[in-house]
């Protein structure tokens, strides 16, 4: 089954947080929503779980009992132990007794949290707490799993663990959508949606996004047009939308980070020119 949003628009007062965004979330695949701060990632995910009302467009999502959600916050109750957190959420979703105990053991083992089962959530590390939040969102085996920046602020090893859990969840048939600011991990997703200031810049698989990218990116010590350039490492990258770069500039094969920054700059410069 396919979930998603079509022509979604959300406004907070005068500010449009999500503007005419459409995305399809297929069962058995991971979709990564990418964008900088304030791009509209969290609002889009909240609209998907119906926590934010749309001002336009449609949401297609399963009932609450088949929906899993990990918010951008810790996603767990600090005063409860790991086991109590999972038991509470499992209880809300109708799990009890041996079925709940077995599911808890399975999830904690997969997340590497078995040893911390009796530890209060407040005493877990950031990565462990995110993994606990993931387990809680997964306890009822949802058809749609919505994860708001699950890996932000956690160490690389925990990120690997989280990605393994996410991949396994999708492999079992769930549609998974996650927001992230880490473009390297977004490249692993089956589908990408790049947002900037509430608008979709591009979407598709990583290969499709790369293949559809128009223009050239060059690298040099200094930029010819500063408002079309950005720093990456010790060099500056510069985007030439019409592939009209000056002769002698070193052209780079863009990765996702280059593509996202280039498209964001293009959108902003176009907006600036229009006003």
């Amino acid at each position: 089954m396919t979930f998603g949003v079509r022509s979604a628009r959300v406004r907070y007062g005068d500010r449009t947080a999500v503007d005419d965004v459409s995305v399809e979330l297929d069962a058995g695949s991971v979709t990564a929503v990418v964008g900088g701060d304030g791009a509209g990632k969290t609002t889009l995910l909240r609209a998907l779980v119906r926590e934010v009302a749309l001002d336009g467009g449609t949401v297609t999502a399963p009932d609450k009992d088949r929906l899993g959600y990990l918010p951008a916050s810790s996603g767990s109750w600090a005063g409860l132990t790991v086991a109590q957190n999972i038991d509470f959420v499992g209880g809300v979703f109708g799990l009890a007794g041996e079925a709940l105990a077995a599911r808890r053991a399975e999830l904690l083992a997969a997340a590497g949290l078995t040893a911390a089962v009796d530890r209060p959530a407040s005493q877990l590390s950031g990565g462990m707490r995110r993994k606990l939040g993931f387990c809680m969102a997964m306890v009822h085996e949802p058809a749609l799993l919505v994860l708001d920046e699950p890996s932000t602020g956690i160490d690389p090893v925990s990120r690997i663990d989280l990605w393994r859990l996410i991949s396994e969840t999708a492999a079992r048939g769930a549609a998974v959508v996650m927001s992230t600011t880490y473009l390297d991990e977004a490249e692993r997703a089956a589908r990408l949606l790049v947002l900037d200031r509430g608008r979709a810049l591009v979407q598709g698989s990583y290969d499709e996004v790369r293949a559809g990218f128009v223009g050239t990116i060059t690298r040099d010590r200094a930029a010819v047009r500063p408002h079309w350039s950005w720093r990456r490492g010790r060099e500056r990258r510069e985007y030439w939308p019409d592939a009209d770069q000056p002769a002698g500039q070193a052209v780079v094969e863009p990765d996702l980070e280059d593509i996202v920054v280039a498209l964001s700059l293009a959108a902003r410069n176009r907006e600036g020119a229009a006003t």
Partner: protein
Amino acid sequence: MRAMIVKEFRELVRDRRTLAMLVVMPLLLLIIFGYAANFYVSSVRSAAVGPQAEQVVSQAPAMFDFTVVEPSEGQADAEQLLQDGKVDVAFVTGRQPVLALVDGSNLFAAQSIVGALNKAGNSVTTQVLYNPDLKTSWVMIPAIIGLILTFVGTLITSIGLVREREQGTMEQLAVMPIRPTAVILGKIAPYFLVAAVDMTIVTLLGVWLFGVPFNGNVLAFALGAALFLFVVLGVGVFISTVSETAGQAIQLAFLLLLPQILLSGMIFPLEAMAAGVRWIGYLLPLTYFTMISRGVMLRGAGIESLWYAYLILAVMAVVVFTGATLRFRRDLAPGARSGHGRRGGKEPEPATVTAPATGGAA
């Protein structure tokens, strides 16, 4: 240091709640202590019964405000008037000397009455009912029970609810298949039980340690406590809906707690307050619980004589609790965080939710 001072002022200006407290609190305290902090009761509700009732009325000092004058009634009727809390003193005539029955559950009025009657010499015999030794603890403990219920119901409940918002778990609850009503009841039921246990312990300790009598019906007391608890829990829920942090909730709870302590008649008698601030006391739930707890425990009064206090608490409970839970429910309902209100109606079908064509969710 200058930068630090400027930064602090900037933060203070932005924190309007703290700023309001800094301005409002001193004014509130000034007004309360200026107009309400008065232990001397200058006018007491009085009754005169028996054949010389009219004569007593004409000869009594001005502080006795006779609201009941019944020459045909006797001592039993006078005691009933006191038990019902309708008067603070009842003069029983037709005997020498005249018998003045004083309601000891209204401590400061009783002290003023006894002081005034002592000047009358042998013409009046004074008998203090319900609190013969005019012990402060006897009138304070029934009121403190209310204060404890207020503390648990308002402060602890609001902190418990705000913690969900602080931890970010409120949005998790909002997307779970659990009804907002179940969330609210599940959140407040433990506090209701804790408050009920606290109340029982304090009442029993008051009776055992301080010898406070429990002359009335336990069920009448429990009913008053339950109604009052719903009001203060409602206030706690309301505070949680307008607070983002536990600190804000504590601030607001204390802002509401302070007038209850000072203006409910718990410490300063309502009769002694200036009319300008007394009306505030009549808007506070603790005022009515104190009437019930003192009435039931000390005077053995029943629901029939305290019906107005029960009625006002019941109305407050319905209004405050309903209003607060509706606000809390709004926080939990889908779309509550949209700038355009929330989508009304029942849960959407699994398929598709469409926004209204004109924008702005219904």
